[in-house]
């Protein structure tokens, strides 16, 4: 498992970060490395921190949603965006990389083509992308999704795995825990602050008053709460140009050593049997003007036995 050597000094760390950024930028010739660092490079290679951000592609929020004949959300691959919660996660991954060095890999399960959301994530500054794509994945439930992600994360030797708090199409918020369990690693969920120090990660999580902290050894999963409020960056023009040349691998289930019978519709234990539009009747009594309004609201509360 890739780790920082415990003895890495601050000065070495600085050099190590530079090493990493050279590696991630093919435009800079390798010989421009300060010669002093060259003998260290072998050891430092061992200590690369690998941050993996799990990203979901969700239907654009602008597009009206409907259920298909198979009772699943009808998806149009051309109309997907980065799951809005995952933008905070990508931003957090990039900020951690700026502090600690290492790589940020974007991992997603998708229909196969190189998609806009993946390109955008790379344009924001991620190092590379991995797309797990296989026709057998269609209809996968949360458990199968976690199974596949865990296998891919193990193959990537991920140290710090970041998830969004949930997806904006399903709102399950359970895939991080499922993935953590399959990997046999801790999950620190709903983080509003993330700090990696040595071999451990500490998060803060909002409580009703104040906050709590939780600390776990790496490798670990962290899910990022929207409340982290970190203003996800927009891709720069330079970022957009360089994203086109960044490594993007596509893996199948066979690449992950997974049996197709453990994923997809066949493995799912949940069934959708129907759906009905929600129609709530509201009274819509509208009054205009502040005078007498408080009395009318008060009367409404008494009439309806709310107080």
């Amino acid at each position, binding site marked *: 498992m890739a780790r920082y050597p415990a003895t890495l000094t601050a000065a070495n760390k600085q050099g190590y970060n530079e090493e990493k950024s050279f590696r991630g930028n093919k435009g800079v010739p390798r010989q421009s490395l300060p010669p002093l660092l060259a003998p260290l490079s072998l050891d430092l290679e061992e200590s690369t921190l690998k941050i993996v951000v799990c990203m979901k592609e969700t239907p654009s929020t602008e597009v009206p949603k409907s259920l298909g004949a198979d009772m699943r959300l009808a998806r149009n691959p051309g109309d997907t965006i980065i799951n809005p919660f995952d933008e905070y996660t990508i931003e957090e991954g990039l900020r951690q990389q700026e502090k600690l060095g290492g790589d940020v890999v974007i991992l997603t399960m998708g229909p196969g083509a190189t998609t806009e959301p993946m390109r955008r994530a790379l344009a924001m500054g991620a190092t590379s992308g991995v797309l797990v794509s296989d026709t057998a994945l269609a209809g996968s439930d949360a458990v199968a999704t976690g199974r596949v992600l865990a296998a891919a994360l193990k193959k990537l030797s991920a140290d710090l795995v970041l998830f969004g708090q949930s997806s904006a199409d399903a709102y*399950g918020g359970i895939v991080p825990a499922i993935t953590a369990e399959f990997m046999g690693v801790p999950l620190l969920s709903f983080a509003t602050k993330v700090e990696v120090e040595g071999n451990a990660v500490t998060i803060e999580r909002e409580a*009703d008053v*104040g906050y709590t902290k939780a600390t776990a050894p790496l490798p670990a999963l962290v899910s990022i709460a929207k409340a982290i409020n970190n203003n996800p960056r927009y891709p720069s023009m330079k970022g957009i140009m360089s994203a086109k040349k960044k490594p993007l691998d596509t893996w199948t289930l066979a690449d992950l050593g997974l049996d197709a019978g453990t994923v997809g519709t066949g493995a799912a234990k949940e069934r959708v049997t129907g759906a009905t539009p929600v129609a709530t009747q509201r009274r819509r009594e509208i009054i205009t003007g502040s005078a007498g309004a408080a009395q009318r609201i008060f009367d409404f509360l008494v009439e309806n036995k709310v107080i």
Partner: protein
Amino acid sequence: MTNDIWAVAELEGGKLKNISLQLASKAAQLAAALGGQSAAVALGQGAQAAAAALGATGVNAVLVSESDIYDTYLVQPATDVLAQLIQQRQPKAVLLPATVTGRDVAGRLAARLGLGVEYNVTSADVAEGEIAMVVPAFGGQLNVNATFAGDGTRLILARQNAFAATKTGSGTTTETLPAPAAPANGAKISGPFGTEGATEEGHMTTVNGHPQYVPPPSRSNVEEAAIIVSGGRGVGGPEGFADLDALAQALGGAVGSSRPVTDDEWLPHHHHIGQTGRTVKPELYIACGISGAVQHQAGMQTSKYIIAINKDKDAPIFTFCDLGVVGDLKAIIPELTKLVQDYKASH
């Protein structure tokens, strides 16, 4: 697999959360319909003390494990205990709260034992010997009917206020469970921090250089509240939330908000109600200076009564409220607070 139904309680700081009683009540009801036994499981500090209230919901048994290990590590000890119990006793279904902790426990159980899990459930009943559920989709515009297939315990993550709490029980047995060992690579909890200056009254503080209004703990948990007084941009600033908090206090409710309010840090983030925040289903929702964008609507549209106050007569909120007032919050809220206080003092 048996026809037994369990409910997993949630304790916070040794206190039983309301949703625990709702889940236990539903477990009793489902088990009775299936001809099985019902149980509530309480893990952590305060579990022993919570047994009586859980038993009163009508469950046949309360399983208790009182240990500080559950409050020392995130979800792993609870997962270990529940996984072992489920394997040994094979309940038909386990109801868990759709909270951060509930989701993490359910996710780990589903992966460890290979179980099906349905989330954000708002209704659960027995139909033809199976559990039939309703799950809202597309921001609450659609109710999806869901069920389970195959063998294995069903895991059901239910939303706050999905089920009514009942008090029909007596003579419940309490069984004490052993506490698990510390997990090998556990996520260790510390805190709470940042509670200095927290009072039973709301107060102004400064976060990242911005003024922020902090309601007290009793008016902070929007998911548990039966009445929510919620504010949007129209409140004008963090100071304006003191008025809303006073009304919430008078009504015995909590303070909520729309997204811009927490994005601008006028209130702490856990007050945010909407698609990307909390989903609530209170008896009464008073929307103050909230325009009513679909994202906000998604988080509160199943409230029993919705009252809206807004200066803009064209605000979308007026299309889905029971009572709407086109008027000025600053005049209306303090007057309403006084009316409620006077009423409560004389009743």
